């Protein structure tokens, strides 16, 4: 328990004098007044406490810890009950709040509305990443997942975000890469109009050959839009497995005497890992308006889009990274859409909603940035 007033003052005096005021014994006395008995720490059930007290052999001594444990159990159950109610209330409140925002800010499938919602933000992420979950058990799990990806792609393009990476643990999106491209392209046409004003879409996945952009009937062979979107699909194998593969390659090189272990530095691994998920920047990269500052001090090659996400949106009630590649999220802002009822543990399908996307970007713009110093 925290020290009482006099002890606190005494302790702080000691700290100010760099440990010279109190002697070792004085400090020990001070602490021992507050430290619990070791038996209390280890034992949690009445039976163990009773065993400790058995030497005493007095009924009142045995009764007391037993009653205490019963009391704790009762309080635990009451707290869990009350807390459950509190969580439900909080879910209702947050659901109402989210509905309110959803009603006030609806995209109406028009990029202009989306841009209006994001006007005046001090910064936008260059690389946006989301964590989605595929519900294999429901019948239309894949369909809704693809639709979610398409919606997110459309919103990101409208917001002017050049790179969107979608993480889905099982990697089912990578298996259906061409379907992803088709559906996202259709959604972009829905939002932005028929080609040639459709943004240029490219879909990538690490270790898979990139798909060529879909051919679209163009009037004079060029597109008159400078919007484009690169979509990167990630899965669990891009996390630890990639680092393990890198370790294996480095081991082979070391065994063949081409590399010394002490040559393995953070920069070497960083270069390799970012190369594995790197996405080349499209040729017409002049889509960002000048009002947005550069996000962080990390310099990156302009021929590639940044491999570290600036913002990571978790579409689940709680933040669990679920195997997202660990190396790249060193400085990423993580935003959770929040718990709005229905799905407590976050294992069923995620709900991708426009208001979640908006709130994440608003939060990102308001976030302060300090890089170590």
């Amino acid at each position: 328990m925290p020290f009482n007033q006099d002890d606190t003052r005494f302790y702080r005096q000691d700290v100010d004098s760099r440990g010279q005021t109190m002697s070792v014994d004085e400090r020990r006395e001070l602490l021992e007044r507050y430290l619990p008995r070791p038996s209390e720490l280890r034992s949690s059930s009445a039976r163990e406490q009773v065993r400790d007290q058995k030497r005493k052999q007095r009924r009142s001594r045995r009764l007391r810890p037993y009653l205490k444990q019963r009391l704790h159990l009762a309080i635990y159950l009451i707290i869990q009950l009350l807390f459950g109610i509190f969580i439900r209330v909080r879910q209702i409140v947050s659901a109402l709040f989210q509905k309110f925002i959803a009603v006030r800010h609806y995209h109406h499938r028009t990029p202009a509305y989306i841009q209006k919602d994001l006007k005046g933000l001090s910064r936008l992420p260059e690389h946006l990443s989301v964590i989605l979950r595929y519900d294999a058990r429901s019948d239309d799990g894949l369909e809704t997942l693809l639709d979610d990806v398409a919606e997110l792609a459309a919103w990101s393009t409208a917001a002017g975000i050049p790179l969107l990476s979608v993480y889905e643990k099982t990697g089912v999106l990578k298996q259906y890469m061409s379907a992803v491209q088709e559906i996202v392209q259709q959604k972009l046409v829905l939002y932005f109009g028929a080609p040639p004003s459709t943004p240029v879409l490219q879909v990538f996945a690490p270790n898979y050959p990139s798909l060529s952009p879909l051919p679209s009937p163009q009037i004079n062979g060029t597109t008159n839009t400078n919007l484009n979107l690169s979509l990167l699909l990630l899965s669990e194998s891009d996390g630890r497995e990639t680092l393990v593969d890198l370790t294996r390659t480095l081991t082979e090189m070391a065994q063949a005497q081409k590399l010394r272990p002490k040559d393995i530095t953070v920069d070497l691994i960083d270069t390799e890992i970012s190369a594995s998920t790197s996405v080349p920047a499209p040729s017409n990269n002049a889509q960002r308006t000048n009002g947005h500052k550069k996000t962080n001090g990390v310099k990156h090659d302009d021929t590639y889009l940044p491999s570290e996400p600036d913002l990571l949106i978790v579409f689940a009630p709680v933040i669990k990274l679920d195997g997202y590649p660990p190396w790249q999220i060193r400085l990423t802002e993580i935003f959770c859409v929040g718990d709005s009822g229905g799905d407590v543990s976050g294992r069923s399908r995620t709900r991708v909603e426009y208001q979640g996307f908006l709130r994440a970007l608003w939060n990102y713009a308001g976030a302060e940035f300090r890089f170590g110093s």
Partner: protein
Amino acid sequence: MASKQLSTIRKWVLSSPPAEWALNQLRELLIGAIKQGEVPRHVAFVMDGNRRYARSRRIETVEGHNLGFEALARILEVCYKSGVHTVTIYAFSIENFKRSRYEVDALMDMAKIKLTQLSQHGELLDRYGARIRILGQRELLKPDVLEAMDRACDMTKHNTETVLNVCFPYTSRDEITTAIRRTVQEYSKPVKRPRTEQKRLSPFTEERITQTLKTQHRDSFQAEERLQDLEPKTLSSPSLSSASLSDFQTRLSRSQSLDAKDHDHEADTSSESSSATTNLHYELLSPSSASSPPTSYAGSPQSKPQLRPSNTTSPEHSQKELSSYPSPESITSGTITSHLFTADDPPLDLMIRTSGVERLSDFMLWQCHEETRVVFLDVLWPEFDLWQFLPVLWEWQWRGRKEEQRRRLIEGRLV
């Protein structure tokens, strides 16, 4: 004015002995209640917000760090009383070396004093079985701090009940890099394999090959026999040693149905004379095994120095061929995990970051990217106390229970 007086009155009331006693009893009660449910085994804290707190209260930054240390003591107390086994704290990042020299020196000083004081209370730590570990890149610290660190760590090395990991100075990328480097170093050490282990699995068995060779020789021998008399001929087949040649011939002349016996005999003699023969393709034959010899095949990827078959006669050459490198294919994510600083700790269950910043900032990236619940709180670290920490634990317990119920429901449905 009235509010200021109210706040002073409130402070006076709260610090009076009966109020303090009541508050302490309440704290004990709540902590005891927490223990009745499931408690995370490994909790990590990012202690952020000391400087902002000092700025807002207009006190020195160093004073803010001291108050942060007091908050740490409070939280550690709550954690260990609730039954948490391992607590990891992010004390100092390698990036923090960029701060002003004054502040860095003050922090190092504080660390040194606290560690020295800790070393003086050895028996207190032993009583609770507490262990302190310092994780991070030691080369960046000055020797006097290192000395205090090592003393505190060595003194508590044998305790196993509760562990405090202090990450100082630490960066998660650096930890992963060090783990990879250690793995590569471990796998670059040649390993002497015992002789019995050198069999290689392959669909080709020795027996069949020797059988085929024998039939070939027999056929050619018989053909020659019919042409000439039983003239002892030195067969030029590479699979027979000169010692067994006469045996073979006599047996063959007697009967032709002793193939199995011949084969065994041949195998025995071959193994005995393996190091002496010049043209043997295989090296180690134990009579009991049926696997094929490690023939030199070019099927393996070229960069792996595999076991090379011995084509030479001298015994020391065959001895050298026995050592090889462990195969890189056996590296898994578990290998890297076991080389991290936190290899001995239970998996991370809960990570809490204070001060409203919603980043991981290079802390425990490898450990927390799978099943760890990450919580961002809006309170500054020096103000962090039981009242902000308990709701996090309550929520953890509540969700854990719901998850358990759901899982039981699914299992019930499947069964």
